[in-house]
């Protein structure tokens, strides 16, 4: 009896699918969910990713999901697509989208516990999605053709960070973050019908804010960090 209980518990411990690589046309289905990620994964520019409603991806360690191919994430209000750390007390690195000419269609996505979710040179749409409990919920660069709409960005350290170029955000809620919107040196935000408030430190902030005046206020921290990395 004890042996049976032990065997059962071992089976129940993880009933899902280990995701070991992204290759070709990747199609994640709810029937095989949750998917467990035990290493960083890369979707190349010629691969595609389609994720059905109700899929959950759990990242088991400090890993990154780097996505360069075309993306279709089709979560719904009742069956969102969730990406979060396997250990709810730990972080994972985050999503890194750098899709270039490949189109991104994301809706009904929930992302939690990431250090930074980066959208770099992305075109497409991020709709009805939730980013909660991340350090940098959304870090966006060089993505003027990305539309963020009807999203909820809450309880993060930084809500939306715009590193460069402009970003379109509409009908979204950025509340209860530490900093709602952070605009790096050249970043701009084209905002429409958003709810922006109750952010602990500031709703919108830049490195040149009077409250942040200091020796290095002329330079964004990211610039200094890039110099350190590239020297």
């Amino acid at each position, binding site marked *: 009896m004890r042996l049976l209980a032990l065997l059962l518990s071992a089976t129940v411990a993880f009933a899902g699918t280990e995701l070991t690589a992204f290759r070709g046309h990747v199609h994640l289905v709810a029937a095989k969910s949750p998917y467990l990620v035990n290493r960083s994964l890369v979707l190349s520019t010629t691969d595609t990713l389609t994720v059905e409603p109700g899929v959950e991806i759990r990242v088991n360690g400090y890993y990154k999901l780097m996505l360069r191919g075309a993306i279709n994430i089709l979560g719904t209000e009742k069956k969102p697509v969730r990406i979060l750390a396997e250990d709810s007390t730990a972080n994972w690195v985050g999503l890194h989208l750098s899709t270039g000419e490949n189109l991104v269609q994301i809706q009904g996505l929930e992302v939690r516990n990431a250090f930074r979710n980066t959208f770099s040179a992305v075109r497409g749409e991020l709709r009805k999605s939730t980013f909660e409990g991340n350090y940098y919920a959304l870090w966006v660069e060089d993505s003027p053709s990305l539309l963020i709409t009807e999203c909820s960005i809450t309880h993060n350290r930084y809500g939306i960070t715009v590193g460069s170029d402009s970003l379109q955000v509409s009908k979204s809620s950025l509340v209860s973050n530490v900093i709602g919107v952070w605009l790096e040196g050249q970043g701009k935000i084209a905002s429409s019908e958003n709810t922006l408030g109750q952010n602990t430190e500031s709703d919108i902030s830049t490195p040149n804010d009077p409250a942040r005046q200091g*020796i290095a206020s002329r*330079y964004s921290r990211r610039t200094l960090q890039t110099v350190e990395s590239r020297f």
Partner: protein
Amino acid sequence: MQYRVVWLSSLTLSLWLGACDSNQVRIAFDTKNMTSQNYQLESQMKLILQDSVDTPAALGSRLRVLFHTTPVVSYDDGSARYQVGADSVSYHSDQRSVEECLHVERTLALQEFQYKMGTNGAIQDMRLGQFVPDLENTDLDLRRLLLKVQPELPGSSIKTGDTWERQHALDEGNGKQAIVYKWFQVEDVFDHDHKRMAKLRMNLKYRVSTSADASIQSRDFVLGSGDVLFNITDGRIEDANLEISGVLDVLLSKTTSDSTSMRVRQVIRLRRLS
């Protein structure tokens, strides 16, 4: 008598030539020894604004990595492939938050890569492990630090005072590479603890140019100077120190062409632990 003078002169000359030959040593990395080595690498960096000499540094950071190199395979041409992995990382920066510093530590701790090295120390084909994605512009790269301090040996016998030059590529990302020019001089050859050692002077220079969002360019060559303590008996580095400095022009805004310059100083130390 004349015969004795000639004989003594020949003997003296032979002894003198023999003494000169014994100062010639051949230094090379031992790529046949298949045991792991443990190292400590430290890097300290200061960015100083050029606006005013009175302002304190804009960025100060300190990195310490304990890592190991493990031989993977030895080739017939004398070269070998090595795997490098970090065992422990400690990082602090006054321009990164606690969480950002933790992120740097974690990404470095997970960084594994391999490279091929010849007996002269020339490193080729240095690449991250299969499942490690590209680094972001603000991530630190252990490979870059190691390539800077790595000496390249001449492949022939040398003696105190000899010099040679080498150059190698430094990956800048996005398919770009910088060429690093290195100059070496044998400062001393001596015995220590039953091992034959060589102290090498190493100078280097390279240009920084990146297309990252901040658009960073070195105004002239970045210059470095340091020394390497090479264990001739065992064919490995025991200690290496390098101090690098240069002035970088940083484009802050493409629209307004606002730019500034900053002096960057980096001190790297590599030490073999076991």
